[in-house]
C-alpha cells in the first residue's frame, strides 16, 4: 500500500517536473523566435555597433541559443531567477510586487464570477426555456462575447467619468499612495492591518470596477457551464424519482442534482481562477493596474527572457497547484475517488 502510494506520488512529481521543463523549453523557443531584440531595447536606436556588441556580451545574447538556455536553467537550479532587463531588478522582487495586485483582482473577480455565476446557472437550468432562462442566457452571452477591453472602457466612461461612483486607473488615489506600510502587498489587507479605513475604501473603490468586469466575463462562462451541467442532472431519472417520491423541488435541486455537479464546478472555477491569476493584460492596461499580466506582456515585448521564463514557470506552478487542489476537493465531494 505504502509503496503504491509512493510510486503514485513519484509519478505525479515526475509529471510536474516534465511539464515545467517542457514549458520552459517552449517558452524559450517562442521568446527567441519572436522578432524582438533585448539588446536593442537596452541600447536604444541611436547606439553604435560597439555599444551594441558590448551589451550583447554582457547579457549573453551573443551566445548560441542552446547555451543561453542552459545558462538560464543552470542559474535557475541554483535558485537564481536572474535580473529583469526592463526593470533592472531581480525578477523575484518584481513578481513579488506585481503578483499581489493580480491576486487581489483575480480573487475579487472569481468571487463575483462564481458567487453569481453558479446560482444563476442553476436558476437558468431549473427555469429552462422560461423568460428567466432567456434573460440569463442573453446576459451571459454578452459577457462572454464582448471584448473585455471595450467593456472596461465603457465601464470607465459610465461608472467613473459620468456617474463618479468608482476611482479611475490605478490601485489607489494619488493622495493615499505610500500611506500604509507594505506587509503583504495586498492593499486591502495592508490597509486593514494598519487600521486605515480611508485607504481601505479607496482601494476597494479602485478594485470594484475592473474586478467586476473581469468577474462578469468569468461569470458568463461559469453560468453557462453550470447550466449545462445542471441540465444534464435534471434530465436524469433519479431526479424524477426523487420528485415522485415527494421530495420538494428545492431539495431535489440542491441536495441531489447540485451535489452531483460540485466536482465539475470545482474544476471549472479552479481553471477560471487560474487564468485570472495569469493576469488579465487588457483590463490591467485599461485600468493601469500594475499586475502580472502587464508585467509578462511588456517583458515579452522587449525579449526580457529572464522575466518571461520565471513568469511562465510561476503560471505553470499555479495551474499545477490548482489542479492538485481541485483533486483534493474531488476527494471531499466525491466519495468514490477516496
Amino acid at each position, binding site marked *: 500500500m505504502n509503496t503504491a502510494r509512493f510510486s503514485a506520488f513519484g509519478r505525479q512529481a515526475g509529471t510536474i517536473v516534465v511539464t515545467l521543463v517542457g514549458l520552459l523549453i517552449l517558452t524559450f523557443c517562442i521568446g527567441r523566435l519572436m522578432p524582438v531584440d533585448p539588446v536593442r531595447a537596452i541600447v536604444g536606436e541611436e*547606439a553604435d555597433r560597439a555599444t551594441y556588441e558590448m551589451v550583447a556580451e554582457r547579457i549573453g545574447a551573443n551566445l548560441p541559443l542552446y547555451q543561453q538556455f542552459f545558462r538560464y536553467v543552470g542559474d535557475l537550479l541554483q535558485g537564481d531567477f536572474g535580473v529583469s532587463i526592463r526593470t533592472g531588478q531581480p525578477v523575484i522582487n518584481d513578481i513579488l510586487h506585481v503578483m499581489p495586485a493580480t491576486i487581489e483582482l483575480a480573487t475579487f473577480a472569481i468571487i463575483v464570477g462564481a458567487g453569481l455565476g453558479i446560482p444563476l446557472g442553476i436558476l437558468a437550468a431549473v427555469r429552462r426555456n422560461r423568460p428567466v432562462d432567456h434573460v440569463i442566457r442573453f446576459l451571459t452571452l454578452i459577457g462572454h462575447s464582448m471584448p473585455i477591453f471595450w467593456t472596461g472602457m465603457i465601464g470607465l466612461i459610465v461608472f467613473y467619468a459620468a456617474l463618479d461612483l468608482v476611482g479611475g486607473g490605478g490601485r489607489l*488615489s494619488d493622495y493615499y499612495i505610500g500611506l500604509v506600510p507594505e506587509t503583504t502587498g495586498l492593499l486591502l489587507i495592508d490597509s486593514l492591518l494598519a487600521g486605515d479605513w480611508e485607504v481601505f475604501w479607496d482601494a476597494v473603490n479602485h478594485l470594484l470596477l475592473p474586478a467586476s468586469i473581469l468577474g462578469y466575463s468569468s461569470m458568463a462562462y461559469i453560468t453557462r457551464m453550470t447550466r449545462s451541467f445542471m441540465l444534464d442532472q435534471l434530465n436524469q431519472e433519479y431526479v424524477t424519482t426523487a420528485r415522485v417520491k415527494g421530495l420538494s423541488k428545492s431539495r431535489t435541486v440542491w441536495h441531489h442534482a447540485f451535489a452531483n455537479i460540485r466536482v465539475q464546478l470545482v474544476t471549472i472555477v479552479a481553471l477560471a481562477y487560474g487564468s485570472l491569476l495569469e493576469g488579465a493584460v487588457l483590463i490591467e492596461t*485599461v485600468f493601469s493596474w500594475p499586475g502580472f499580466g502587464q508585467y509578462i506582456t511588456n517583458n515579452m515585448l522587449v525579449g526580457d527572457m529572464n522575466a518571461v521564463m520565471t513568469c511562465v514557470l510561476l503560471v505553470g506552478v499555479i495551474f499545477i497547484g490548482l489542479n492538485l487542489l481541485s483533486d483534493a476537493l474531488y476527494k471531499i465531494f466525491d466519495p468514490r475517488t477516496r
Partner: protein
Amino acid sequence: MQRMGKLFSTILVASTLLTSPTWAETPPNMLVVGFSMSNILTLDPAAITGKETVQVLANIYDNLVALNAVNRSQVDPLLAESWTISPDNAAITFKLRSGAIFASGNPVTSADVVWSLKRLMTLNLAQASFLKTHGFTAANADKSFTAPDETTVVITLPKKVDPQIIVQTLGIVGPGSVLDSKTVMEHDKAGDLGSAWLTNNSAGSGPYTLGQWRSNERVILDRNDSYWGEKPGMKRIMMRHLAESQSQRLMLEKGDIDIAFSLSAADLKALEASKEVEVQTNAGSGFYYLAVSMKDEKFQKPKVREALRYLIDYQGLNDTVLPYFGRLRDRPIQAGLFGALPNAGYTLDVERAKALLSEAGYPDGFSTTLRAISDAPFMNAATAIQATLAQAGIKADIITGSGDQIYGAMRERKYELLVGRGGGGQLPHPDSNLRAIVYNPDNADAAKLTNFQGWRTAFYDEKINGMVDAALVETDKAKQVKDYEAIQTYYADVVPAIQPFAEVVDSVGYRADIKGLVLNPSWSTRLRTVTKER
C-alpha cells in the same frame, strides 16, 4: 430561489455602499502627470533610451547649460554661469556658478562634472553616442574633460567641430546630466560606477529628487528642498503609468491628472473642445519620412527616387494623418534651426512622376513593398502613400510590424520602401539632422553603421558627406548658414534615399488651471515652473 434573490440583492446593496464619491481634483501641491511608461528601463542618465525617461530625468538632474524651450537656438546658463570658446575653436571653458548643491548636500564641483562625463564615456551606453559622434571616447576622456580648479571645467575637442554643438549636447538630458560623484561612488558595485544603484535612485542637483520608481506603475518626484535655484512650485510630482490614451483623456477631463503626455490624435482633438483642458503643441525631434533602400537596383536610379518625391501628398498627409504628430516639412533640416530653408514646396504630381518613371525605364510602374510600424500615424501615412504610389502604377504591398521588426529590417538593409520616423534633431543644430539622415561615412555592409540612417538606406555620396563635415567646422557663422543652405539645395538636386514629409511635433493636454507649463522640445520639459491656480 428566494435565497438566491436575497443573495443577489445583498451583493448589489453592498457594492453600492462600497462606492464613495472620489475626489474631483488633484491635491494643490502635487502635480499629477500621466503617460505611458513601458519604455522606461532605467533611470541612470548614461543608459537611458527614449523620451519618456527624459521627461523624468529632466526634473532630477541639472546640466551645465539649458536649451531654451522657446528660442531653439538659444542656450541658457544653468550650473555653468558662463562659458567661453577658445579662439581656435578647440576648447570650451565653463565657469560654474557658486552655491549650487546636490540633493545630498554635497556642493556641485567641476570634479563632479568631469566625473559624470568620463563615466558616460566609460560605460559607453546609449547616451555616449552623442559625444562619440564628435570624437570623444573612453580612451581620450581624461584628456578631453579636465577641471583646472573647483569651478572651472575645460572641454578639449578631440576632433574639429562646431563647439556650439558640444555646448548644446551638454544641455540635453543624458549626456549632459551632472551627477553627484561622491554619492554615486558610495554605491559602486564591482566597478559599475553606480549603474545598478542609479537604475532606481537619483543623485542630481535638480529641483526634484527621485522618491520612487515602480516599473509600469509610477514615478514619484519629491521637491528638493535644498534646491539651489528658484523654489519649485509643486511639492511632489506624481507621474503615473497610463498606457491607454483614452484612460489619460478620461482622467484629465475629470481632473484626476493634471497633464497627459501620451494622448492620441483623436483624443487630443476631442479635448480641444473642452474648456477645462488645453492642448499645447511644440517642436519635437526628427522627421516622418519615406525611405528607400538603395540596395534595390530600382531605387538606385535617381529618376525613380525623384518620381517617389512627387508621389507623396504632402498637404493631404499634413491635414489628415499628421495633426498633433507632425507638421509639413520637406527639407532635411528642421524648421526654425539656423540655416533651415523654407519648404521646397513639393506636391503630389502624378503626371510628373509618371514621366520620370518612363525616363527611368518603368513606364508602367513596378511592384514593391512598403514597411511601416503598425501604429498611428505610421500605418495611416503608409496607406495614404500606397494610394498615391498606385496612381503612377507602383504597386506597394504594405508590411507592418513592431518597431523592432520595421527598423530591424532597415538596420539590416533588407527592405524596399519604408515609412519611418527619425533623423536626429535632439540638438537644435542642423548637423544633428543631417548626420542622422544622410551622412554615411562607410557604405560597406560590414561597417554596420546602423546608427546612421544614411547607411541603413545605403545612400552614399562623398560630396554630401564632405559638405556636412565642412559646415560643422566652419567658424564664420554667416558662411556656416550659407553652407547649410547649400546642403539643402544639393539634397533637393541629388535626391537621397530619405524624403521627409513632416517634422515631428509633440502635443500634450493639461488642465486649464495649470500655469507655467512650457513644453521643451523632445519631452525635456522642466516642471519646476508649474503652479496651480485653484
